[in-house]
């Protein structure tokens, strides 16, 4: 009996190369576990997150820690990754961002440092180079957008199979806190005009709280030429013209900047010029 089994084992090991295989398998397993335990890549995250949130900040020293805290309350720290794009704020936002990264881990937060206020579009584009996940979320860092809506975006996308989910203040239970009638009229007036001229099929064109599939972003964002409010409109119009499917989820927009009138005549004229440009070129 023993000689037969010996010969059998010899023939099988020769034909299958089992002996040569198993040591290699063993070392492969060992190297994977040692990477997991000892070396998370510093500064770029572990690359395992499903969703990346790109957060451009400028002078958000007070609000940024609160945003990160809210993320940790409502989102899973392994499924989400945050890229903070910091434009050399004079109030020390960069320091706070680095402290947050040390506290919550480089697997959760990446800080992308830039030399100055180079604009929202370029902030998104620079961050897009670092994105490895299949989904990207863009939102404001001034606490006007609440992270609790992100899971709603995610479930909307998975149940409808769309390419982009946009937060709307005008439908589906969405709304605004802290706006007087004048501000509401201007917002609705601007939206009516944009809707009439561009007929995008989306109720809130200037909204900036959205969930995108990363390939859509990579294709559309380099094409955008507008600035300010019109930037978000151009993104949505180009996405719809390219044939992607967009769904909406109602969000509450909280305006905490009481009394500050950001809508002067210059802004209105800039908006109209941008809208006209979009009307003529898309």
């Amino acid at each position, binding site marked *: 009996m023993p000689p037969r089994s010996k010969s059998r084992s010899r023939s099988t090991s020769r034909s299958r190369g089992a002996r040569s295989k198993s040591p290699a398998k063993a070392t492969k397993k060992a190297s994977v576990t040692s990477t997991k335990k000892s070396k998370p890549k510093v500064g770029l995250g572990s690359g395992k997150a499903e969703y990346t949130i790109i957060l451009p900040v400028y002078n958000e*020293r007070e609000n940024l*820690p*609160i945003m990160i*805290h*809210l993320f940790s*309350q409502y989102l899973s720290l392994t499924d989400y990754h945050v890229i903070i794009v910091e434009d050399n704020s004079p109030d*020390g936002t960069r*320091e*706070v961002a680095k*402290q*947050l990264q040390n*506290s919550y881990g480089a697997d959760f937060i990446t800080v992308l440092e830039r030399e100055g206020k180079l604009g929202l579009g370029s902030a998104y584009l620079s961050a897009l180079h670092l994105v490895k996940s299949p989904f990207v979320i863009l939102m404001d860092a001034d*606490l006007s957008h*609440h992270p609790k809506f992100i899971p709603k975006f995610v479930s909307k996308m998975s149940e409808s199979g769309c390419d982009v989910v946009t937060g709307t*203040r*005008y439908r589906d*239970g*969405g*709304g*605004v*806190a*802290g*706006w007087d*009638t004048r501000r*509401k*009229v201007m917002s*609705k*007036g601007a939206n*009516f005009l944009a809707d*009439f*001229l*561009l*007929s995008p099929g989306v109720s809130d064109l200037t909204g900036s709280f959205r969930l995108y599939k990363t390939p859509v972003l990579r294709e559309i964002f380099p094409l955008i030429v507008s600035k300010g409010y019109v930037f978000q409109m151009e993104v949505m119009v180009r996405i719809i013209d390219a044939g992607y499917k967009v769904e909406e989820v109602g969000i*509450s*927009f*909280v305006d*905490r900047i009481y009394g500050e009138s950001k809508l002067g005549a210059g802004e209105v004229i800039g908006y109209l010029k941008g809208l006209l440009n979009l*009307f*003529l*070129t*898309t």
Partner: protein
Amino acid sequence: MLRYQRFSAVILPAFSCYCYFILLPLGWHFPRAIANALLNLVGGGWTYYSWRECIRILSPLLVVALLGIYALSDIAYTVITFNDCKDASAEIETQVAEAKKEMKRRKIA
């Protein structure tokens, strides 16, 4: 097709029809006819124009006016029914306080 092209494809033929069928028969006196039609609306003018003639001559202005009425009423309706999230600002303020405590605990400025 670009959006302005889609608009032009509707507006230009319609405006051309207006110019050809309504303004052309009036000859070079058409500005006077338009002014007369406008004045007829407010009960004046130097010749009497019937309702049909007034509408025919002023049809582009009528379209713009109807559009304006639609826009104003839509904006008024949506502003009145604009959802006010009163509890959202209270919620965020309590969460700001919680977050500040957490930041103290983690020793973040």
